[in-house]
């Protein structure tokens, strides 16, 4: 797998990461006003992971996400305005405003759903991967979970099943160092989540999640492996989240300058811009133009989401398994 990306691919990667960042930073501000129902868990800081993995996927490939799912949705191609409306609980949302932040799904885009249950996406993608295998396609299925999710029995069971059935499944462990407020170096017994792959008979790698190109290469190798029938693998992406576990989290468990230092030295968008400009592959004008487009998109999405109608009482009886009179 190589980092030879076309100009179009590079611009798309930047656009995805910039959109996620702008989406999350705007939510950080808007959530504080009290207008957004429920909880939101922001993905800012982790953009290179979603963008690097999803750059290799098509709509027919499935992903399952976790409670921190906005970035995965955007990178998989879910409509940004529809997501914003969903988070605001509006009828125009991608799930009719009935799911909210932790249940955004769009099956047409292969997005099986964000998930409020830690680790619960893993069995879902094992099922999606089994479906692809039985249908004889070369589609793959990818689950994103965190360091907390890596301790869940459901993840272990899914890894075992994927391995014994040789499923085209990729387990992406986004290790941001904290399961809610618990440090992963305390709670993860083997510390390197990638080491756990050996116990399930699959390869595991650890990769720098601040570097889009590193994730792109590693995910590309894992996905190509799965597409060609060589089975599942585990990719541990080491990164950080810029905000709390949820909005409102005081983060007293983190060192005072931890996020500031990482933002200043490792930020994935900063690195991407500096390195592509230095290599002469993109121009500042191209990147600035994307920044402007993204800003407009987010502004427009928030404005529309705020003024859109809420679901009505009758909507409670739609999108359910039973038909009501």
């Amino acid at each position, binding site marked *: 797998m190589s980092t030879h990306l076309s100009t179009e691919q590079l611009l798309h990667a930047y656009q995805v990461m910039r959109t996620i960042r702008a989406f999350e930073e705007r939510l950080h501000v808007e959530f504080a006003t009290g207008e957004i129902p429920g909880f939101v868990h922001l993905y800012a800081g982790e953009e290179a992971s979603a963008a690097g993995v999803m750059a290799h996927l098509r709509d027919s490939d499935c992903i399952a996400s976790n409670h921190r799912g906005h970035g995965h949705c955007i990178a998989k191609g879910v409509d940004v305005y529809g997501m914003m409306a969903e988070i605001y609980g509006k009828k125009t949302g991608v799930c009719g405003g009935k799911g909210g932040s932790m249940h955004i799904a769009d099956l047409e885009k292969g997005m099986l759903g964000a998930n409020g249950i830690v680790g619960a996406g893993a069995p879902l993608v094992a099922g999606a991967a089994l479906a692809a295998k039985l249908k004889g396609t070369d589609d793959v299925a990818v689950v994103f979970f965190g360091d907390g999710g890596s301790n869940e029995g459901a993840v272990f069971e899914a890894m075992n099943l994927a391995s014994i059935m040789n499923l085209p499944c990729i387990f992406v462990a986004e290790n941001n160092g904290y399961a809610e407020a618990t440090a992963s170096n305390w709670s993860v017994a083997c*510390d390197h989540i990638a080491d756990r792959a050996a116990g399930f008979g699959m390869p595991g*790698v650890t990769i720098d999640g601040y570097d889009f190109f590193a994730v792109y290469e590693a995910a590309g190798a894992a996905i190509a492996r799965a597409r060609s029938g060589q089975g599942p693998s585990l990719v541990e992406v080491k990164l950080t989240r810029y905000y709390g576990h949820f909005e409102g989290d005081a983060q007293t468990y983190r060192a005072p300058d931890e996020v500031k230092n990482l933002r200043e030295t490792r930020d994935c968008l900063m690195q991407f811009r500096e390195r592509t400009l230095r*290599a002469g592959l993109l121009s500042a004008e191209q990147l600035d133009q994307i920044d402007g487009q993204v800003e407009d998109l987010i502004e427009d999405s928030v404005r529309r989401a705020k003024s859109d109608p809420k679901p009505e009482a009758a909507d409670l009886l739609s999108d359910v398994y039973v038909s009501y009179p």
Partner: protein
Amino acid sequence: MSHPVLTVGIIANPASGRDLRRLTANAGLYSSTDKASAVQRLLAAFAATGVDQVLLPPDMTGIAAAVLKAGLGPQAASQRWPQLRILDMPLRQTVADTRLAARLMVEQGASLIAVLGGDGTHKAVAAEVGDTPLLTLSTGTNNAFPELREATSAGLAGGLYASGRVPAPISLRRNKRLLVREPNRGICEWALVDVAVSPQRFVGARAISRTEDLAEVFVTFAEPHAIGLSALCGLWCPVPRNAPEGAWIRLHPHADQALLAPLAPGLLLGCGVTAAGILTPGVAHSLSLASGTLALDGEREIEFSEQDHPTITLDGHGPLSIDVEAVLAYAARHRLLAVGREHPQHPANQPC
């Protein structure tokens, strides 16, 4: 009369052995648990050879914690492990941790530093420690600099040298190095085995697993049995570890001649060879590519573009390392590990 405290350091790189080559080749895993066990085997050997104190860096992956826990157990007591001291240092979870730990160990009087890692880990330590010798142990992926060796026997050799029972001229060997310089960017980096020039524009996942990603390889030494990028020279124009010169090889997918080489464990690839030659010490070589990346000891680390002009120079001022075979051969000749009747390990003193 009290003797000076005999101190050695142990650096086990928590990150080594987990890169992309587990997906692109069939490279194995060296887990944190394995590394903690190897450190404990070293401690047994250091204890048996008179080392008083061992310095360990802290880490976020449980290696130091596992060793400290074992240090309270019955095996540590019966083997009389050296005193364990964890360095007081901040952690960034990057190679900066390895470099800082190496500097602190030298400052705190370590007679030698045992390194558990790959070529890259050894390179990072070597650049910080001056003439403090390295006891090299391979726990990486493609290793040419550290030889594959069991920690127990390597630890015996290290302890015998550190305690002065085997003289330095027998114990130590001086290694070569490659210096990568780019004056405008203030770059001056070391490599102990190889520097590869790649047309890949980004560091990315660091490992190189495709022949088209290689344009040139410079080596300090290249043995025919090597694994990794130095195997290209090792199987085409080998250079012994102890020779003053190095070698270089230039590659292109459309070359008339091609060589089958093991670029990674389980990864045998045909590589087109356009030219090869001897690398003379002290001569700065410019690169055949105007832009790309430089892989130092197997991992892409430096991105360069048209405005940069990196050079590569071989010299003989690399680190000192323990020659385990020579030390243990000397120990055998002089019966250094013979134990007297008073020694607790003498069979006569063992419980029936």
